[in-house]
């Protein structure tokens, strides 16, 4: 299957934080052909192992992690007239919600009800109303159905996803929802596929983590279980755009970014850059002194500390349902990471403590 189709299927699977099961199943299915062991853990993360080509049980371990979960909405109340109030799971920007089409996953998720997030027409607004930002108190979902009809299958806690089709734009760009971080998951799958064509001595644990958007739980719990020697998180980073500071955003199509700063082990950052240069893989350096909102932070402080690195795919319109990326960047990240893994040896691990 083409990487583009893998990404399409991954973004179409629902996996709101804490309820990642559909996305987890899909991810496990895609990873299975390229690894030796696949399982789901008790927090909802997908854990896979691809053993290194070295005899004995004392192989070194690298953990690579991309998060499985996506942000979404959850029902808090069904009001008279059938209007449904919601709250957010993860960092949804309320300003992107008015006038959106939504799917309500009623019952066990098998019964999908279509609705819209109501947007009062200009004709009925008071003067100045359209310049006031809306909050969750102003927003509701309208399905056109009555309260009693809805209550047959919808209840408080039912999950809601904004509808957005996977769309191919011109010039190799793609727009879809949940590419934060299914694009990372797709890149991780592609990394493993490429590793089947290369030799590597380290064991590779590829993990699709749960609940990154709310607590980083999946990365913490899996790192604790696996105790890797090093870890690399795969996530998305800010793509450029009007009104977005140039120094905090990255060009699409210019390659993945390599994280640089206190959150990342300098030798991992350096080696990632060296590999990219040696193999002429375009890359951008993302310098950030703060512990970013990625799994790399959770990994770095797990147990007695795990040297961590971060690779990111530039993504425009992050945390919206119209996220945009360039597929080439997803492929380049996989190429960079698979070469990096294939070059890992025991000396690299020994040098991590030499400052």
């Amino acid at each position, binding site marked *: 299957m083409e990487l583009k189709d893998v990404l399409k299927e991954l973004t179409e699977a629902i996996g709101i934080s804490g309820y990642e099961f559909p996305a987890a199943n899909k991810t496990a299915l895609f990873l299975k052909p390229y690894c030796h062991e696949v399982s789901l853990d008790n927090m909802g993360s997908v854990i896979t192992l691809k053993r290194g080509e070295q005899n004995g049980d004392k192989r070194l371990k690298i953990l690579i992690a991309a998060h499985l979960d996506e942000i979404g909405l959850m029902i808090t109340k069904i009001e008279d007239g059938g209007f449904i109030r919601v709250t957010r799971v993860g960092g949804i920007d309320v300003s992107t919600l008015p006038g959106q089409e939504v799917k309500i996953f009623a019952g066990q998720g098998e019964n999908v009800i*279509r609705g*819209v997030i*109501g947007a009062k027409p200009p004709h009925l607004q008071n003067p100045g109303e*359209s310049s006031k*930002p809306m909050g969750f108190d102003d927003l509701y979902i309208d399905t056109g159905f009555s309260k009693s009809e809805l209550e047959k299958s919808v209840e408080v806690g039912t999950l809601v996803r904004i509808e957005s089709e996977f769309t191919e*734009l*011109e010039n190799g760009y793609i727009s879809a929802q949940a590419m934060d971080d299914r694009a990372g998951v797709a890149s991780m799958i592609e990394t493993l596929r490429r590793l089947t064509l290369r030799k590597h001595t380290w064991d590779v644990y590829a993990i699709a983590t749960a609940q990154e958007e709310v607590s980083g739980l999946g990365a913490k719990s899996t790192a604790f279980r696996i105790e890797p020697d090093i870890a690399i998180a795969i996530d998305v980073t800010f793509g450029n755009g009007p009104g977005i500071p140039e120094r905090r955003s990255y060009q699409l199509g210019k390659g993945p970014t390599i994280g640089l700063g206190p959150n990342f082990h300098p030798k991992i950052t350096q080696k990632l850059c060296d590999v990219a240069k040696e193999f002429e893989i375009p890359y951008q350096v993302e310098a950030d002194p703060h512990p970013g909102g990625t799994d790399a932070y959770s990994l770095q402080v797990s147990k007695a500390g795990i040297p961590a690195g971060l690779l990111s795919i530039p993504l*425009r319109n992050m945390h919206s349902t*119209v996220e945009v990326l360039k597929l080439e960047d997803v492929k380049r990240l996989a190429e960079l990471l698979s070469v990096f893994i294939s070059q890992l040896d025991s000396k690299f691990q020994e040098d991590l403590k030499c400052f």
Partner: protein
Amino acid sequence: MLLEKLCNASGVSGFENEIRQVIKEEVTQYVDEIWTDTMGNLFAMKKGIGPKVMVAAHIDEVGLFVDFIESSGFVRFQKIGGIDDRVLPARKVLIGEKKKPGVIGIKPIHLKGGNNQVVGSDDLYIDVGASSKDEAGKSAKIGDPVVFSTKLVQSGDILRGKAFDDRAGCGVLIEILKKSYPFTLCGVFTVQEELGLRGAGIAAYALEPDFGFALEGTTAGDTPTKKDISPSTNMGEGPAITIMDRSVISDKNLVNLLVNTATKEGIPYQFKRTITGGTDSGAIHRTRSGVPSVTVAVPVRYIHSPVGIININDFNNTVELMYKSLKALESGNIDH
């Protein structure tokens, strides 16, 4: 389904080609003459004797218009028609005749620093998947119309889609053109209503009708509010008859004709309880030496946004009310 074809077609004011073609194909077989004027109004006439009745529904919809392409490949736009800026961020759109996909970009919440001010349309842009002006040129050029990429979905009696204002009215007009009348009935599918009732005015001038009806998709206001106010109309409670709005005071005799017909035939109806907005009646009634006119509408929740909701029973009842009222008109049941 007729409404699906109508709503999914593009037709931003001034760029009504696609929707006009769809409607032309639907109605040609039912009428004696069909023609367009210089602005693009589509006339569909059924000839008869006695009064000449003009029934108008506008084919244009609100949308966007490409006015600039940045060197970085981002596409800037202006609004056509009354759109609330707050429904624009993170929206999927289709650009130009070839309907190239694009999305309206946002600044990620992480970089907003808690600033939740409404971003005006002048500061918004369409991301077409480009990193240069040349790349963007594959998707958009200056002057392209832009529509929301919403597709119609039916769940039971509820339809969800874009442009019910006024494709609902167009659908009602198409349905009544399928039936026969002894008088001359001219259906006019008007252009540029959203820019100030522009098509209807010149169409009425050319036609010189004795009566005018405008068919609309109007605001349904039966949604949560902070104050206890009477909703503009209620979805599911029948066609809405306009007594007065910003553009017209409806002809009293025509209002009575509709109300009496509804009562006699047992068709549910309601009056529109706000006086905001304008419709093609506003232009028709002022034409030449004056044309008695009235507006009848299908209640639509969330007009002028990317997606609205209607109840199919309201649509069917509007068709029924219009058909039965025209039959009553033909039997001379009106003071003139």
